[in-house]
């Protein structure tokens, strides 16, 4: 048993090495049209600003981690820490460097990529769960760093970073709709890049290393360099996600927003959604951010006032845990697979044979 478990690569193939031949050609434009036009028309401020914006940002964070874990097979629990790097670096570039926000966010992504590269260096020797636990070093180190040295939060009194006003090239994008569009645009572009990346030679090297790094080395893939590259790319995405979370969604942030529970949340997203899948990140993020709300609404609707509130809230937490286990049991390859199967079934419907 232990022999199997030393490596994290699953025996079941997580993603096809070749892409499915038949792709619905209209799905993507339809989805974009829906996201850019239809959703803003029907959504209100609460839905846009408090549900969809964090959902999109979490999808992006999931995408970042998925590149590292789902594609390159290196598990990390440092996602929260890297998101913090993105947020604090953005703040630093704006406040100390006087740069406009979009430039600052991009540079912050690069800084985070550098940080990820550093923490990826031990990955040539440390593997599996050992690597995963080691990645907590990044998580706790960055939490400590950003609240210990006041320079990072510009000597504010409480270690909180906030930017004056949310502006993009002089336009005020502070409304829920503005924030939604900004997030959507960033996420759409980065997703497009990621989708192409995983189909490129680099992406295939990632997957070869995931499936078996010794074998990958044998066929001539520079394993160590590729692993470190995966850390850097993944961290770039996480850094951007962190910056968006701080300045587009919350408006301000402290390290508390990027604690270890955030790392777990991002990991949940990719596992529930589907490792080695691009759309899985979005499905997983929807699941993780909507399910607790759905449970909450349902519970409040039926039980509020009748059952002890403490018991009710704790039961909701337990139900969330049960559902996660249940989905893991029922859908080993994540919800993305479930949706794909469903799609295939629908495309054949009603003539299944």
């Amino acid at each position, binding site marked *: *048993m*232990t*022999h199997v478990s030393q490596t994290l690569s699953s025996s079941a193939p997580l993603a096809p090495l070749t892409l499915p031949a038949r792709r619905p050609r209209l799905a993507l434009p339809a989805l974009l049209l829906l996201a850019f036009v239809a959703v803003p028309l029907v959504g209100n401020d609460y839905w846009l600003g408090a549900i969809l914006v964090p959902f999109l940002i979490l999808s992006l964070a999931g995408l970042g981690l998925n590149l590292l874990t789902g594609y390159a097979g290196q598990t990390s629990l440092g996602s929260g820490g890297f998101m913090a790097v993105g947020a604090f670096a953005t703040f630093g570039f704006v406040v100390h460097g006087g740069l406009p926000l979009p430039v600052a966010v991009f540079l912050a992504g690069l800084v985070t990529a550098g940080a990820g590269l550093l923490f990826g260096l031990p990955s040539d020797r440390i593997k599996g*769960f050992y690597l995963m636990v*080691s990645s907590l070093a990044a998580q706790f180190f960055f939490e400590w760093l950003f609240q210990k040295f006041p320079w990072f939060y510009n000597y504010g009194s409480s270690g909180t970073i906030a930017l004056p006003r949310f502006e993009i090239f002089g336009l005020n994008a502070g409304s829920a709709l503005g924030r939604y569009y900004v997030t959507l645009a960033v996420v759409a572009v980065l997703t497009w890049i990621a989708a192409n990346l995983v189909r490129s030679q680099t992406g295939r090297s990632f997957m070869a290393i995931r499936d078996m790094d010794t074998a990958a080395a044998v066929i001539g893939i520079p394993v160590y360099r590729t692993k470190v590259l995966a850390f850097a790319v993944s961290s770039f995405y996480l850094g951007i996600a962190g910056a968006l979370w701080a300045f587009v969604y919350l408006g301000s942030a402290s390290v508390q927003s990027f604690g270890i529970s955030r790392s777990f949340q991002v990991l949940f997203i990719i596992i529930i959604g589907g490792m080695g899948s691009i759309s899985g990140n979005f499905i997983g993020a929807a699941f993780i951010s909507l399910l607790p709300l759905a449970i909450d609404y349902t519970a409040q609707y039926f039980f509020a006032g009748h059952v002890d509130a403490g018991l009710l809230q*704790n039961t909701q937490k337990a139900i969330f845990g049960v559902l996660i*286990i249940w989905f893991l049991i029922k859908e080993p390859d994540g919800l993305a697979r479930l949706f794909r199967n469903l799609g295939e079934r629908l495309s054949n419907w009603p003539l299944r044979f």
Partner: protein
Amino acid sequence: MNLFLETLIGGLLAGTMYSLVAIGFVLIYKASGVFNFAQGSILLFAALTFVTLLEQGLPFAAALAVTILILILGAILIERTVLRPLANRSPMTLFMATLGLSYVVEGAAQGLMGAQVHALDLGIEDVPIFIGDVLISQFDLVAAATAVALALVLALLFNNTRIGISLRAVADDTRAALSIGINLNRIWQIVWAVAGIVGLVAGMLWGARQGIQFSLSLVVLKALPVLIIGGFTSIGGAIVGGLIVGAAENLAETYVGPYIGGGITPWFPYFLAIAFLYIRPAGLFGERTLERV
């Protein structure tokens, strides 16, 4: 010099408190390859159950017995509902399942037994003892003795009982163990129950020190570096890892901390662990695996 000695000894002793938590991880990983993140919640649940029973007026021994019974039932339940359906899945999936499990256990613990903080008095005086000028905590001495005793008991259990031998067989080669008729599910149930009891011991000692409350579940974050320094599969490694982490973290906070602002204990052990792992990628006592193509 005294300060150094005191810090070193205090750190070594404090480290065994981490070992206690790490042993629970090792047991489960060894037998089933599951990295059980719920160990912290189980520790909380066990200690909270025990102290709640105690406060209901049960005598110490009875409360202990009932708690152990509940832990055994819990282990059977977990094996049936989580482990068995997930058998042969990737270690990552199992790890995530234990994260889900930790939500369930924490929700159950707080929902059923309330969120209040409980005091637990084990009757251990915590006044300083002086050996020469060096201050030593009596409580830490007891904790260290408990950890060592626990490790010895587990070693005896593994080496001299039928269950222990089957367990080692499973750890060595699951398939071979199955083929000679070892009941894998039963072994898992036993191991999870034993890990729960180890969690109870750790929870009682930690609880006596800090009160029995939710943050008991957070002591796992202290045990993880211990675990990877010692290796996932070695109980002795957990003890040695605990000593190393305890001593190093205390020395670092005392001698390095003041120069970089202090409060470095959350991350320092992890960096130490990375340094150790870089030299020995499966921990000090972990099993190295051969990689074949």
